């Protein structure tokens, strides 16, 4: 298992390399960043400035050299490369923003998993009951709702609640207040207050798909022979459910939720946009809009590492949970 883990991590390096090459190529399609930056300036920016800027960004060199230089600086100096905004520090900004986004994703995943497992298992054990129909219907509704629509609605609801009660119960903008009352507790409460709405809106749309999977896989297991055997030999229903059925039924969930991390990094972009968080989402959108190539590459690396780790964890859990699956 350890050898397998190490091998997978080693394999992940070329995966990330290939991904970065593809993204680097893709960014070439978005057009010349310098031209975009100075387009439409009046009076026109002198050619010399343009040339200097191109030189600073390394755009005067061949594409392959650009990529290799970027990679070399990243590996040897931990330098994420020059940004189109000369004052922007890509590495530092990523380091700050990733925690903002991770906070959101982590709590959303926990909330979504708990909701999904509870409602999925209850639905499956009481298939075609009123409870099952209710959960199923709720799940389907959330599954069909666009993330941004839910977020805008929640935000609107919170604003109206604030207005009606004349309080500031819900924070709807940003991941924290610019100024808070002094004290650790107040700072904590402030961050928590800002997290409520985005976490709920992200978790709701995620939970829906996961609860469908949990119900699906639980039903399959409950109809299997070994669960019938477990029941026949007189185990308590609880033991059959938790020890025998749920253990197997969680296997598909591990893949789905580990892969969900990847989707959530994308999904968080939408949620962050609506609630105006300064996380990875707004970073990516701005970077794409300004064609800030190295900023985009940095985003890809950070997101890519999380996705690779998520996949690895999913596969390892697979092996632990289902002894029929062997990794030689």
């Amino acid at each position, binding site marked *: 298992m350890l050898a397998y883990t190490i091998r997978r991590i080693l394999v992940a390096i070329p995966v990330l390399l290939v991904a970065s090459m593809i993204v680097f190529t*893709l960014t070439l399609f978005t057009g010349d960043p310098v031209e975009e930056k100075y387009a439409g300036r009046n009076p026109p920016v002198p050619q010399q400035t343009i040339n200097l800027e191109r030189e600073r960004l390394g755009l005067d060199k061949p594409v392959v050299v650009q990529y290799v230089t970027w990679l070399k600086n990243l590996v040897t100096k931990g330098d994420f490369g020059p940004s189109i905004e000369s004052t922007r520090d890509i590495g530092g900004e990523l380091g700050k923003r990733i925690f903002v986004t991770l906070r959101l994703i982590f709590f959303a995943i926990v909330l979504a998993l708990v909701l999904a497992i509870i409602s999925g298992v209850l639905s499956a054990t009481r298939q075609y009951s009123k409870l099952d129909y209710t959960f199923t219907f709720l799940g389907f509704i959330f599954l*069909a709702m666009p993330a941004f629509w839910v977020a805008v609605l929640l935000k609107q609801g919170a604003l109206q609640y604030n207005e009606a009660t004349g309080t500031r119960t819900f924070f709807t903008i940003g991941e924290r207040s610019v100024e808070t009352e002094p004290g650790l507790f107040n700072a904590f409460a402030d961050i928590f207050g800002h997290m409520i709405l985005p976490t709920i809106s992200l978790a709701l749309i995620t939970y829906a798909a996961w609860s469908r999977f949990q119900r699906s896989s639980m039903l399959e297991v409950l109809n299997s022979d070994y669960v019938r055997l477990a029941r026949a030999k007189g185990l308590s229903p609880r033991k059959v459910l938790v020890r025998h059925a749920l253990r197997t039924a969680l296997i598909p969930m591990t893949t789905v939720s580990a892969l969900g991390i990847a989707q959530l990094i994308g999904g968080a972009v939408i949620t962050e946009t609506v609630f105006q968080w300064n996380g990875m989402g707004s970073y990516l959108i701005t970077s794409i809009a300004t064609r800030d190539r190295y900023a985009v590459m940095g*985003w890809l690396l950070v997101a890519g590492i999380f996705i690779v780790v998520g996949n690895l964890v999913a596969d390892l859990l697979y092996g632990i949970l289902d002894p029929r699956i062997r990794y030689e």
Partner: protein
Amino acid sequence: MSDIQSPPVPKAPVPAGSTEREFTVKERTQWQIVVRRFLRHRLAVVSLIVLILLILLAYIGPLVWIHKLEDLDSPTDIMISASNPMGTDSLGHDMFARVLRGMQQSIKVAVIVAVLSTGIGAPYGAIAGYFGGRVDTILMRICDVLLTLPLLLVAGALVTGRGGSVLTVALVLGLLGWVVNARVVRGVVLSLREQEFIEAAKALGAGTFRIVFNHLLPNATGAIIVQATLDIAAAILAESALSFVGLGVQPPDTSLGVLVNDARSAVETRPWLFYWPGIMIILIALTISFIGDGLRDAFDPRQMRQRR
């Protein structure tokens, strides 16, 4: 089950004298069983009908509707009226005409993504899971590479600066989306391949192609179908999300996501602009999910419980 009327075409040869038995259980092909089971899922059937109506509305509606997409001849900021059933925006666009156009876009996305992600993902995942070993490793690494490519980034790169058409967006969604499908199918196949019927098929001399397409994939149909409907619903939402952040369908063309984004700041003042396109997204995605649910129940041969 024995007394239910059924189409009289047993495909398999009927053994001589079978009609002389006491009970006659008509033989049915797997597809007849699937259709019958599907028809018993009322919600799925209703959804199928609603979806067909929505598709007809989206494609036939604009041909007969009094307002065209670009018309600015309606009074502005109407909430509801006989000639503007979904209201109008502040420029005098008829919302109904725009929503119909948006629905067309969503349906296009659904079809393209369904074909691409199931067509590529299912066989790919089955082959990876069945072969295991080095083939599996290589195929899955390719998936890993694709999974690390953020949808927003790829769509952004291909759309920024050249005006994205819905076709571009759908292709991006389909070509990135099949990976999840492949991984799910692989997961199912990993445990299927250890089972006796695969061993039996091998012992009978079945080739790889036959095992993958005749034995593994049909047994994974439930998972594939559920995943495909999830994919389609997710793709419709993804298209609207991309359009919402400005990396999808570009003006002057429109989509449901563009419409919601346009109405984002007007939730309080002109809520109909926000609700109608949103409701249509939900309605399309919802019906597809329900149909998928019906198909899941219909395809699962182990699920013998009758619906009440």
